[in-house]
């Protein structure tokens, strides 16, 4: 029996970050494919070559005819299918690990800055910047993974790839063997002296299992298709809701009290125009993989979302900037505080990128 524990451990990690549909798919994969393969199917196919008998005494004829009838054994074929179909999920996991890595680095930076802050120095601007970044890259929101931006596209891509692999393997299987096995195969290949009848072992049992594995593949494929449409519809709904909120907040603009010592969001108060731009500029100047995935509209929507969420949670969000410094200088100050990389290209792999 093969050892599936390595794949099992990796897929277990993904479980925590999957949607409900993804978890069902993983359970189907584990129980109805891997477990059945390991326990029942491998023993049914165990003696496939030793019990493959041809009606001839010619040495070598059985070997040759077996090879011709079964270019790849069903068991090995299903093993490859399971590996290929699990691979896109592992891609998704690697993206998540990468984001977790980033979040850890940001957390460490934040800790350091808080240490510095406790010693009395003013690093509020940098802290604010880190909070914004954490919000943007943050993985978990109330226990559920935030499916947007880079992660969303990776997830969709993984579902599409999984479906394509399933279909391709099913087509290959259909082309090679069909979905039944007959008890007798005729074979005429050197060194067989003439057309010989060759007899399989357990063809009916094998047919039952072929159909079983076919049904499970189709169920997995159906789950993938359903998940695909569900995730896309959910995203569309979220975006419509966000744009509705934007529209509402744009309609309800009231001037904020003038005696603010710092810019801040208060309930029912319009945001001072520069602050969203501030967040926006911070984003565009930053070099990261995810920023390329964000278009400008998504950035603005995210920012408005954030502020609306904070309003809903009843908090005020303060952005402590020095009173007398003008906005242009604020931006310049930020740019000077942290060295920015000169190039915006982000598709190169960097040495400190994810390790799986």
């Amino acid at each position: 029996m093969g050892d599936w524990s390595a794949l099992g451990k990796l897929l277990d990690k993904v479980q925590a970050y999957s949607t409900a549909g993804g978890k069902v798919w993983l359970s189907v994969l584990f129980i109805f494919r891997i477990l059945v393969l390991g326990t029942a199917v491998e023993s049914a196919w165990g003696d496939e070559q030793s019990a493959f008998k041809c009606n001839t005494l010619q040495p070598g004829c059985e070997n040759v005819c077996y090879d011709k009838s079964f270019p790849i054994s069903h068991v090995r074929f299903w093993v490859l299918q399971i590996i290929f179909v699990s691979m896109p999920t592992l891609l998704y996991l690697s993206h998540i690990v990468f984001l977790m890595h980033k979040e850890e680095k940001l957390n460490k930076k934040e800790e350091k800055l808080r240490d510095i802050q406790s010693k009395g120095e003013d690093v509020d601007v940098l802290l604010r910047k880190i909070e914004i970044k954490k919000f943007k890259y943050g993985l978990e929101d109330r226990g559920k993974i935030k499916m947007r931006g880079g992660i969303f596209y990776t997830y969709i891509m993984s579902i599409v790839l999984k479906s394509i692999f399933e279909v391709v393997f099913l087509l290959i299987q259909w082309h090679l063997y069909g979905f039944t096995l007959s008890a007798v195969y005729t074979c005429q290949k050197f060194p067989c002296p003439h057309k010989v009848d060759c007899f399989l072992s357990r063809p009916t049992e094998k047919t039952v299992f072929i159909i079983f594995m076919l049904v499970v593949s189709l169920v997995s494929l159906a789950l993938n298709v359903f998940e695909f449409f569900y995730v896309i519809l959910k995203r569309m709904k979220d975006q419509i809701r966000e744009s509705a909120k934007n529209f509402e907040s744009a309609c309800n603009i009231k001037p904020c009290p003038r005696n603010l010592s710092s810019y801040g969001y208060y309930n029912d108060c319009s945001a001072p125009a520069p602050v969203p731009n501030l967040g926006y500029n911070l984003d565009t100047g930053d070099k990261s993989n995810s920023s390329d995935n964000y278009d400008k509209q998504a950035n603005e929507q995210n920012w408005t979302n954030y502020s609306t969420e904070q309003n809903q949670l009843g908090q005020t969000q303060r952005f402590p900037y020095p009173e007398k410094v003008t906005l242009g200088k604020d931006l310049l100050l930020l740019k000077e505080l942290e060295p920015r990389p000169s190039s915006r290209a982000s598709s190169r792999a960097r040495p400190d990128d994810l390790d799986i």
Partner: protein
Amino acid sequence: MNWMSLQVLLGGVSQYSTAFGRVWLSVVFVFRVLVFVVAIQQVWNDEQKDFICNTAQPGCANVCYNKFFPISHVRLWALQIIFVTCPSLMVVAHVKYREMKDEKYITLHKGDHLYVNPGKKRGGLWYTYILSLMFKAGFDAGFLYILYFLYHFDMPNVTKCTEEPCPNTVDCYISRPTEKKIFTLFMVVSSSVCIFMCICEIFYLINNKVRKFLRKRRDRITDSNYRRVDPTASSTQNLSNLEKAKAAAEEKESEPT
């Protein structure tokens, strides 16, 4: 994946089961999975190699074996165990869903729990549990029926076979028929015990629910201060409703004075 990983998978189920359910799980693992892995696979190991037909015709033994054993006992029991243990995962999934809802509720309502105990079989979880028991009993019964239909729980010493390419009616001899019959009966009996336990558990749960309902009705008739407990509400909501009702009743009493 092997049987031990199935055991790990189901390890978390027992905490959400009744006592019957835990006994059922132990019976399945000790009398079915363990016996299957340790004994049955050895007994059926050489079933095709030692299936000898009284003929020199190549291929006749293969074909006769295929005719007499469309699906081997071993594979049937492997599938049966897998299908029978799966419905418990429905219960685990439902509890996890409740825990997720609870977490969301806590973050929104700052500390209040939606479910005092997400694993308690109230409301929807009760129905999920009953459904899982029905599926378990159903799958077990289904596989028992398939076994009966194919083999009639029997294992003869010799079978007769006239399939192509056998030249005439040949006698084919099965290996270890008595031992196989004993183990077949053993597995049939343990499946029947599991089905019986599932049915008992279903009756036990239904009985509990009916008794609770009757007790409440009786209390309602006798106790004028009784407030109807919403069976679909969670336990915390019920508790808070009861407390509010009590407070309101106390206020009404204190008002005239």
